[in-house]
């Protein structure tokens, strides 16, 4: 009997999972891609207009601004979270006595959803309600901080709120990594007379590479999904200056009744993610395959 069929009852037990993967994930993916080649508006229709929706998509300002914004947001958000999260972890690690308190404080924002985060920061940063209004009330009447209402600045504030919310998660991951570092490594480095910052830079950070990869992947998925924080904080505004791709897709799918264009945008997002993930997937699964086969 072929070994592949010997465990048929195992395969049977996995059948529901397979069905979900095939229909819910792959099926909808294929359907979305198919829709992007149609001229569907409010209701899906099965015609074929070729790449016309893609052509339109890349001539839409709102989309190009969205792509620009997601690049700015993604870069700032991921780098900011990694740097700040690592520094917080080092800080907590060195102040072992207050660890529990500090850890709770830094992890607290994570307990809030992006919607709440966006809303809170929207209040604080709103020139008419928050920081600016208060400072002016205290007497500094010329104080101005209205980035939330400046089209070219708003996205930076969104990134800032995102970092505020998510750097605690990175801290938790990094802290676990730091705790796993062999104490004798620190002693050895002290005997060698290596300055503390260099120990972190040359020994600890390289040793924490798996933690950085994990954190980056988690943050990257948050970037691709980013929708709620923008809706709550700026609603894509002022104007369309802080739009992001996920919001573009949702808006065109449900509000603007343009399924063709929305699915084209979704497909572009999918391809982008795959292009970014491919090298990683390749390294993870295909490079190790010869070794795995040898072991088997």
């Amino acid at each position, binding site marked *: 009997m072929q070994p592949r069929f010997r465990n048929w009852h195992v395969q049977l037990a996995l059948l529901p999972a397979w069905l979900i993967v095939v229909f819910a994930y792959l099926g909808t993916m294929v359907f979305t891609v198919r829709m992007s080649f149609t001229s569907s508006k409010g209701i899906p229709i099965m015609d074929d207009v070729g790449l016309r929706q893609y052509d339109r998509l890349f001539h839409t300002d709102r989309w190009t601004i969205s792509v620009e914004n997601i690049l700015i947001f993604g870069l700032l958000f991921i780098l900011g979270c990694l740097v700040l999260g690592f520094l917080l972890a080092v800080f907590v690690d060195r102040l072992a006595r207050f660890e529990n308190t500090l850890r709770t404080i830094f992890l607290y924002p994570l307990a809030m959803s992006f919607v709440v985060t966006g809303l809170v920061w929207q209040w604080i940063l709103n020139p008419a309600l928050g920081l600016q209004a208060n400072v002016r009330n205290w007497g500094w009447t010329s104080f101005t901080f209205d980035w939330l209402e400046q089209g070219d600045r708003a996205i930076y504030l969104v990134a800032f709120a995102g970092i505020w919310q998510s750097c605690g998660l990175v801290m938790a991951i990094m802290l676990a990594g730091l705790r796993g570092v*062999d104490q*004798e*490594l620190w*002693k*050895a*480095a*002290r*005997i*060698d*007379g*290596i*300055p503390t910052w*260099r120990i972190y830079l*040359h*020994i600890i950070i*390289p*040793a924490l*590479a798996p933690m950085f990869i994990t954190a980056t992947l988690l943050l990257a998925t948050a970037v691709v999904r980013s929708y709620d924080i923008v809706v709550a904080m700026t609603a894509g505004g002022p104007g369309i200056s802080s739009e992001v791709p996920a919001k573009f897709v949702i808006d065109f799918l449900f509000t603007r009744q343009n399924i063709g264009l929305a699915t084209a945008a979704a497909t572009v997002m999918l391809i982008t993610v795959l292009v970014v993930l491919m090298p990683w997937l390749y390294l993870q699964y295909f490079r190790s395959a010869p070794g795995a086969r040898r072991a088997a």
Partner: protein
Amino acid sequence: MASVSVRRLAVSFGHVKVIENLDLEVEEGEFIVLLGPSGCGKSTLLNTIAGLIDIEAGQVWISGKNVTWTEPKDRGIGMVFQSYALYPRMTVQQNLSFGLRMAGVPRAEIEARVAKAAKLLQLEDLLRRRPAELSGGQRQRVAIGRALVRNVDVFLFDEPLSNLDAKLRNELRVEIKKLHRDLGNTMIYVTHDQIEALTLADRIAVMRNGVIQQLATPQDVYHRPKNQFVAGFIGSPTMNFLTGRLILGAAGPTLDLGSVSIDLSAYGFARQSSDVPAVLGVRPEHIDLGAASPGHFAANGKVEIVEPMGADMIVWSRIADTPVRIRVDGDSAFRNGDDIAFHFDLARASLFDAQSGERL
């Protein structure tokens, strides 16, 4: 001039006093082993000498300089750790040279020192590898190399062989001994393994509860233990202890075990004593089978258990209801219940005060 000198050292962690008022003088070029059960303060002492633990009182001198408050890197020491503590993402070459590069040593000098250490430790073929690609023994050789390139006077070893399997441990033990012979540096070595201590040391410091119990050559520590703790800690199988009462009669000193009395006139007393409860310690290999010689204590017994250990064999019998181990040739034939006659030389035995444990 002492190479390493620890004077009236006190170390505590919080309210726990780990070491109190400890003195240790290590001569130039000497190989000292700190031996003791876990928690006896031997690693703490070593870390204090290295400057990795702050001390509460006392002084540490290395090569004639008071280094009590000097940074570890400036003390002229190299250290090797149990977990190797190699820099994980660096090649062997980088591991060896990193500290020197940080210290601003000229490039040519670094290369020369690394090449020399690599040659000495047979690491030349491994220089491009990372620690993850090395075996445990190779990793520890790299760690030794990292201490070597520092060109220091004193090497500190913190249980360097404990993570290795028995065979590698034996191999590396000999390599460390050769290294000491070739370099002639002062070495301080912490271990809980008495074989390592006995084979490597010029002098062994047996520690317990933060106190050095005995500091002497391996021969002295083994054959003339200063107290009962040292006697029981060193030696495998353990020394036999016969508890009784020391009686200084007109006919000479005897140890009264109740049913049996042992004549102690051949024993070399270390100091004056009175009639006190005492413990006689006899090593299993010092008990011989057969008829007694003059000055020996002789007894008869039955074989209770036989433990063959390859090269030799441990036969269990009794003296006055106390079980005793007798080490005999591994090729002997004994069976449980056999009658045996045995004897031991009192000149080679050790007598301890039962209360204080001190040698009498």
